[in-house]
């Protein structure tokens, strides 16, 4: 049969017959202008464009603002909003139920780099077949603005004082834990976020996406060295937790070119420096990847793009030689040994 387009099929339907609406979730309850919403939208767009059946995806998260976001995309996918820092273990176990499914996990910098650091590292080495997105804003939002482990040294927060510690680099941690796909992006760079989500989804194994996702409310540095005058016109106190000022999402006006370095202002006037990977950069070279991250740290850059990818290691389920049928569809016949086996076992008990 030839695959002629059927009459009457609307143009906005993808190859599995779904509209973009079929990938949406519940309305977001995060702050207006939160970078996390932008990421949710890019997940929706990526899945729609890739014609992924929502039933073939399982969503996971831990606890925190970021971990709420799986509610806001792909209603038709199963989801598990688990415990703080424990998303990797839940996802690992769930994966064995039906290993044909792909996981999309959304975590935050607190959920991953503090309370969940151990599980994060171990899910890397197990190479679970899951996209692991870290919506990274350097601050605890839901508990009203404490430092996270990815906050830069010297950052000042109103109630917390000055952060005395070096930040955790999530991409570096992933890489040295033998992750097979490591990328970084910026929530305001929608196109790159979407393309990296697609690449991560296509990757068989763990795919870490560290996405800088500015907190509109709490990561507010009013004495930044590199300060834009963004906040000057705003009289309302940024630290008053009873009032969340409506803001626009920070979006890059122009795509980053390859190798480009650009400063981007945050809501509070602070600045981050994005550095797109150079043309000709080889993401399959782990040594180069580590060098690029080290270089970025020395220059105070946030290197964006696909930092590392390897397709050589087997994904978790492949190392267990599982039957093709999803384990959760097996029945007594497959699972309970035959009656005569009980005699064999008893003969061994002496």
């Amino acid at each position, binding site marked *: 049969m030839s695959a002629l387009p059927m009459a009457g099929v609307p143009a906005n339907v993808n190859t599995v017959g779904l509209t973009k609406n079929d990938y949406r979730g519940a309305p977001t309850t995060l702050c207006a202008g939160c970078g996390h919403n932008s990421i949710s939208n890019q997940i929706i767009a990526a899945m729609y464009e890739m014609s992924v059946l929502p*039933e073939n995806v*399982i969503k996971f998260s831990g606890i925190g603002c970021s971990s709420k976001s799986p509610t806001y995309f792909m209603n038709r996918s199963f989801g598990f909003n688990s415990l703080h820092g424990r998303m990797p*273990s*839940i996802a690992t176990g769930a994966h*064995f*139920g*039906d290993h044909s*499914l792909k996981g999309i996990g959304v975590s935050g910098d607190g959920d991953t780099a503090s309370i969940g650091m151990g599980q994060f590292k171990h899910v890397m080495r197990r190479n679970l077949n899951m996209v692991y997105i870290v919506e990274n804003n350097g601050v605890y939002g839901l508990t009203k603005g404490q430092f996270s482990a990815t906050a830069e040294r010297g950052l000042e927060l109103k109630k917390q004082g000055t952060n005395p510690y070096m930040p955790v680099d999530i991409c570096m941690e992933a890489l040295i834990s033998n992750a097979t796909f490591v990328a970084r992006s910026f929530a305001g760079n929608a196109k790159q976020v979407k393309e990296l989500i697609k690449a991560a989804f296509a990757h068989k194994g763990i795919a870490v996406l560290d996405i800088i996702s500015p907190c509109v409310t709490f990561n507010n540095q009013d004495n930044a060295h590199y300060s834009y005058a963004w906040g000057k016109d705003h009289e309302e106190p940024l630290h008053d937790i009873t009032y969340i000022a409506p803001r626009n999402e920070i979006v890059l006006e122009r795509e980053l070119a390859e190798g480009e370095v650009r400063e981007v202002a945050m809501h509070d006037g602070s600045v981050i420096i994005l550095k797109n990977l150079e043309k000709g950069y080889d993401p399959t070279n782990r040594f180069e990847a580590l060098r690029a991250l080290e270089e970025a740290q020395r220059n105070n850059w946030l290197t964006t793009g696909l930092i590392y990818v390897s397709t050589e290691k087997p994904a978790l389920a492949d190392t267990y030689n599982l039957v093709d049928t999803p*384990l959760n569809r097996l029945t007594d016949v497959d699972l*309970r040994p035959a009656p005569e086996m009980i005699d064999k076992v008893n003969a061994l008990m002496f």
Partner: protein
Amino acid sequence: MNKVVNDFSIIVGTKNGSGSSTANNTILRAIFKMGIPVSGKNLFPSNIQGLPTWYSIRASKDGYLGRRDQQDIVIAINPDSFTRDLASVAPGGAFFYADDIRLPITRADIAIYPMPIKELVKKDPNVPADYRDLVGNMVYVGALAHMIHIDIEKIQAALTFHFKGKQKPIDMNFHAVQAGMEWAKANLEKKDPFYLEPMNQTDGMIMADGNTAAAIGSVFGGAQFVAWYPITPASSLAEAINDYMPMLRKREDGKHTYAVVQAEDELAAIGMTVGAGWSGLRSMTSTSGPGLSLMTEFAGLAYYAEVPIVIWDVQRIGPSTGLPTRTSQADLSFTVGMGHGDSDSIVLLPGDVFECFEFGWQAFDIAERMQAPVFVLSDLDMGMNQWMSKPFEYPTTPMDRGKILWEKDLEEIKGNWGRYLDKDSDGIPYRTLPGNKHPMSAYFTRGTGHDEYAKYTEDSSIFIRNMERLKKKYETAKKYLPKPVLHPTKGATIGIIAYGSTESAILEARDQLARDHGMKIDILRVRAFPFTAEVDEFVREHEQVYVVEMNRDGQLHQLLSLANPEAAMRLISVAYGDGLPASAKWIRAGILEKSANVKPVQKAAAKKAIAKKPSVKKNASKKGAK
């Protein structure tokens, strides 16, 4: 001297890591094969090599398998514990020792048998120098065998079994046994009263440890996912699953229907277990106290999100790290309400190796039926020591996978369902599993407040409604739980309630109390929490109920008192926890001590209270221990 036949204990004192377990297991198996009821207990230190360790074997013609406090025959191979071992021999007992230990013999009231172990092994050209210490252990097996009449053929059978038929090690070890025997025959004069004589009391019986039994039971229960983290005394449970899965679940295509994952810690172990249970697998983990503490947050999530999982807790004695290699029944209080907020746990309480097997498969049925975590509380004594048991029996009922909706089910109801809807009014909702391709199948699981359709809500009335349904579900659970086991005594007005591995020692204590004090006692062994009606009836039916358990605070006693406040005055705690397996001696002493405190007035009041109650004996299971 009167002969003491088939009723004594043998304790072997060696160094940890010296390879004496083959020798001790050989003695144990040979006695078992002679048809004599026997049990073997390893009293070992938290250490890999060097510290003193003891193996205790008890032969009991009456079938008492609990620990015997009295040490009748002591075999001392370890110089470090020699003095202690010598002092531990009961008057009239026997003391075997390696004669290279040059320490003073200070006892004249026992039989003393020095054995030239080193010398005999050195003489054997077939034993390589590296193996001398290892094989040397077999010399004491031989000397003992000669002195107490262990059947040499049974020793050979035991070695053949142990070395899985490999002739070289069988021969090497058997020669050492023979050398020990011959030397003893030529050099030792029998001065003790202990003899073994063949019986037929172990015909058709098996010998196993509870962890192995639990593992095999789990495999027969269709275990599909096991995540665990090493901890004494639970490790051998997961390891036994690894051992038996390939044999029992072998497929022609060589593929696996299961996965066993060693996690990075207990948090991850139970996290994976919850993930797998949620996605529809028969999912389990095994741990002990410290690991259980770490698993608390996930246990709460599994309760509230209603995820079926099985958690084996092979109890060791706490608090904290406690005595890692000593047994206990002190995790009951912690387990029954595990997690913050209001939560209820389903707890199964196996009493012997056979029940470790039974609950191994039944726990999955209960967990999936109830969509809840099911805890199974074993302990080190049951889990790691060798117990005689009736053979494992093939599961009598097909797997109960509980209320699951697949594509065709959703098609029939046109996708109209809610994850937490109480459709059947039993508190148990329906669930769907990831991979279900029906567009209405998915739902979002969370530990936060949720409505009947799994949507996030902070609505007070919905919250209450959900919590009440969970309570109703817990009530429903009682229907599916194993009933207590009753050991009745004609005319008894006194009762004992206990659970777990203490049963054998309690039966022995009961017989002693009947013999020496004329006490008539019914025993009820509880096998699950929440308590079923039979337990309450038993409490009501007896004038005094001694609650016997291995912990300090009387945790089962507390739970029973809460469940039966009107009977609290008649519930008497006999609790003791020193880390050693229960013995009839402390149970008997504890009951006698507390008996003196029971005032007659309470007895009279109790009688009145029980006058109208129906007999418990009709309802409780008749299954006896042995």
